[in-house]
């Protein structure tokens, strides 16, 4: 098990490394993806900093061999500086070195000029995480409960009602649901129209959670309900359950001791993955409800061409999805030792 786990983690690490490298090259080669210097007065300092970090070359004369000129600045001593981008491959190694030695993932150029991207992410992460955690805490038990109810009452009106609702909510795109929730609860109702600012009253802050949490919960409640129901239905018709009943267990005993435990084998790993997933933000929700989380940051960085921030955000989303994958696969093994996900057949 240990060997297997280590192998999985190592593989995921390599995969993440390859993906992030790929993303780095793709982002760096974006049209207009060159370094943008921030405000007028800090430019020189910014470029010198970039030169030191190895992303920019400082030439005394014009040197077209380095590609397009980023900017020409004459400093106070009347010395001309011609700034060029270093080749992307050199930038890549410089960047790797900065990460390993200083945990520096680059600096923001537009959103918060000259700030490190990690600082910006850390500022925005708590909001996203808080919303996600509350939503997970609500949606997982509720989803599982609804799934159990539907699964145990298979093919009755209860099951049909739940299944129909699940099908409807799973089929409607989240942005439609969020838009209409804002319309009905905030515009027509009394909830705040947007995410309350940090100096808003406590009651407003509390009310501000309702729409984001609900809209995040809908999808995952439906997802859990659906998979729990499917698993439970399958387990309920299995032979060992019939055996358990013939041996004299009551329906309740059979369900709690055998059916539920086996039905949860595939569910629990996804619950664990969900907890990993709290570190990523929902882009659409955060954009629509003006939440300053990292999902909103993604769109903001994208629209403002702050590619350094965008890149780090992408790296986070990638890492989280990979991490969630590992946790799912490994926890399968822990929960049910017979299962080895991804192992050779």
């Amino acid at each position, binding site marked *: 098990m240990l060997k297997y786990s280590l192998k999985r983690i190592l*593989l995921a690490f390599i*995969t*993440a490394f*390859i*993906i992030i490298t*790929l*993303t780095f090259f*793709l*982002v760096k*080669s*974006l*049209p207009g993806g060159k370094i943008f210097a921030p405000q007028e007065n800090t430019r020189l300092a910014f470029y010198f900093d970039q030169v030191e970090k190895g992303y920019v070359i400082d030439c005394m004369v014009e040197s077209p061999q380095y590609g397009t000129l980023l900017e020409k600045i004459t400093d106070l001593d009347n010395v001309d500086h011609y700034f060029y981008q270093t080749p992307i491959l050199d930038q890549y190694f410089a960047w790797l070195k900065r990460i390993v030695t200083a945990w520096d993932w680059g600096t923001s150029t537009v959103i918060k000029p000259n700030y490190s991207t990690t600082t910006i992410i850390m500022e925005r992460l708590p909001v996203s995480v808080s919303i996600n955690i509350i939503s997970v805490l609500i949606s997982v038990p509720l989803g599982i409960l609804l799934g159990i109810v539907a699964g145990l009452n298979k093919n009755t009106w209860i099951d049909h009602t739940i299944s129909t609702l699940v*099908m*409807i909510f*799973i*089929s*409607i*795109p*989240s*942005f*439609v649901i969020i*838009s*209409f929730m*804002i*319309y009905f609860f905030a*515009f027509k109702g009394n909830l705040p129209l947007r995410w309350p600012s940090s*100096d808003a*009253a406590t009651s407003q802050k509390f009310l501000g959670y309702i729409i984001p949490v609900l809209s995040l919960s809908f999808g995952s409640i439906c997802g859990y309900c*659906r*998979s729990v*129901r*499917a698993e439970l*239905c*399958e387990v309920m018709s299995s032979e060992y359950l019939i055996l358990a009943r013939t041996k004299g267990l009551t329906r309740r005993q059979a369900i709690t001791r055998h059916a539920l435990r086996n039905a949860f084998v595939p569910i629990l790993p996804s619950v664990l993955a969900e907890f990993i997933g709290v570190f990523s933000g929902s*882009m*659409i929700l955060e*954009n*629509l409800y003006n939440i300053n989380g990292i999902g909103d940051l*993604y*769109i903001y960085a*994208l*629209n403002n061409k702050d590619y350094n921030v*965008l890149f780090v955000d*992408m790296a986070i*989303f*990638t890492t989280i*999805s*990979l991490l969630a*994958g590992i946790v799912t696969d490994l926890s399968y093994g822990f929960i049910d030792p017979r299962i080895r996900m991804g192992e050779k*057949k």
Partner: protein
Amino acid sequence: MENKDFEFKTLPVEAQEETITEKDFKLVDNSERVHEQKFQTRPTTFFRDSLKRFSKNKSSVVAAGILGTILLLSVFVPIFTGGKNNDNSKEYAYRTFLEPKLFDAGTGFWDGTKKWTKIAVDVGGHPNATTEEEKQEFWWPSPDDFVKQAVSKKEFTETVYTSDRNEYAHGGYVQFGISGEANETKVEMFTTTYKELDIDSGDIYLKAFDVYDLDKLKAADGEKAFFPENYVQGEVSFVFNYYVEVDGEAEKKSVELLAKNSKFDISSLNLTEIIKADEYVTTNNISVFKNAYFSLELEKGDDEKHNKCVLIKTLEFETENALKDLIEGSNFDDANELMFRQTQNKDLTVNTKYWSCTGNKKLHMAQVIYCDFVYDSYEATFGEMEINQEKYPVTESHMKTYQRNKWCTFSYNFEVDDDGKFYVSDFKFERKSEKCPVTEITKITINDEAEIKIYGKVIYYRYFEFDSMPRYLMGTDKGGRDMFKYVFEGLRTSLLLGIISFAVCFIIGLIYGSISGYFGGTVDLVMERITDVLSGLPWIVVMTLTILHLGQNFFTFGLAICLTGWISTAARTRTQFYRFRGREYVLASRSLGASDARLIAKHILPNAMGTIITSSVLMIPSVIFSEATISYLGLGLKGMSSLGVILSDNQTQLTIHPYLLIFPAVVIALLMISFNLFGNGLRDAVNPSLKGEEQ
């Protein structure tokens, strides 16, 4: 039920012992040869069998029906709703935001009307508004529209005590207070400037003021005590005195502020002391107080005295004359005037900026006329109306066209008067056909360039070249586009994108998965690692990067989806190949010398195809879903409408025109639901062993 023809009896013991001889047996068939019998039942194909299973699943059949209808609509609606007045690549400024209309007006539901409740209106019109823009700014909905087109209205008046923004109130007085809670210190209050600040002419800035209870002020220490806790709104308006130092001598001044309609009948007010001031400058000519608290004495009619504290945010004044201006500028009978009307007229001394303040403004004792009314946007756009001279005038060329079509006869004469100016002496107009847009001409004027202006009435749907009053099933958007056509055009794009990328992904995935699954071993291992890396990329990252690199067009979208979209099909194909490649018939074929390609194409693939195709077909809705999402993030298709583009474009209209979102949302939801149900049903039918799994 018991079978009465047959009864089971226990034979007696003697009978059981009876021996059976050869004679007791009889051959069934004595013919020479026995032939195989043909199946009596009719043979069924795999497809027919699946169809039979599918049709048993009621919800899937219904979903298939809905899906088919939507597909047909998306193909035929854009074709049949064309015509010269319905080209969605153009914009039609005259018919923006028409409500959806299916039934005749007055039906009350889906009839192109909108019900407005409790809309504050002033039917008298704005006294100072001269241009159309100014009217629009202050009067909404525009009074013209309201008066003419309201199908029904109900009027009631109300005296408003506290209203933050009521643009139609009259009378009463304005009171400014700090906003919200008592501990909120960020107060930027009401700003009233008297003209532009012009030191030379001696103007005054009075920025903001508030009233506080002096007793509270004295009782507590610290700054927060200055803010009122149970400060009753609507009770106090006041006159206060202050001192101006001119040439070393303090002079007592009184300023009367908005006290006309106050409940508080204040007879006199005396400034007793300056309690605190952030900045306090007095020179020979200028006195400036900033954030100064004044204590003052309020006197009620019956000799009741109250101590109050006044906060002056900024008070600057220069000369004695300026003081006079302040008093004049402040005495407004109409609070509304003070609060909301911004005028550049130099004669009016008040320049009030409503939008620049974040403080709390309250209107007291003002009267507002509210109306409930039903507004028919179609009548307002297409009905018979006075000719709109500014936007849609009837020109001479229009009239010539109408004459040429023999809808009417029209002629006029003009002469030159003594000053050398033209004037129309007489005109003749006769309406000959119902088709003629102009119904009545009352007056014709002519300018120096001999261009005529025609006044009268015109039927606007005829003017815009419609045969009858148009009906837009889903309304029109901000560009005047017919949403019914636009939504289905968008749906067509979305579906096309979904189907094309499904086809491409399916083929790639099938080839990749077949090779990986058939050969296994090292080939499989390497190929699996490649898919591992690709599937680790979040789709949103892939799409963003592709679109940023290659632009927001249809091809790029397809490519972005296909870059990682084929992985799921490949995985399924691989699993199926693992399942079938060891079967006997494959082995038999191989031993007869079949090549790998033949084995894959002729033997394994046909067996695996049903499962693969049915579980991959659900990719189409997910592509539509992804496209809509990415459009929502601002990276949508450019120059083409898709459901996502429509939804994200109209997102901002949700509060005022919800129908712009409701219809596309219903279509996309219906599409998704029916696609999912249909896909599940199809999978169950083709692959009965998977039944019950809902993945």
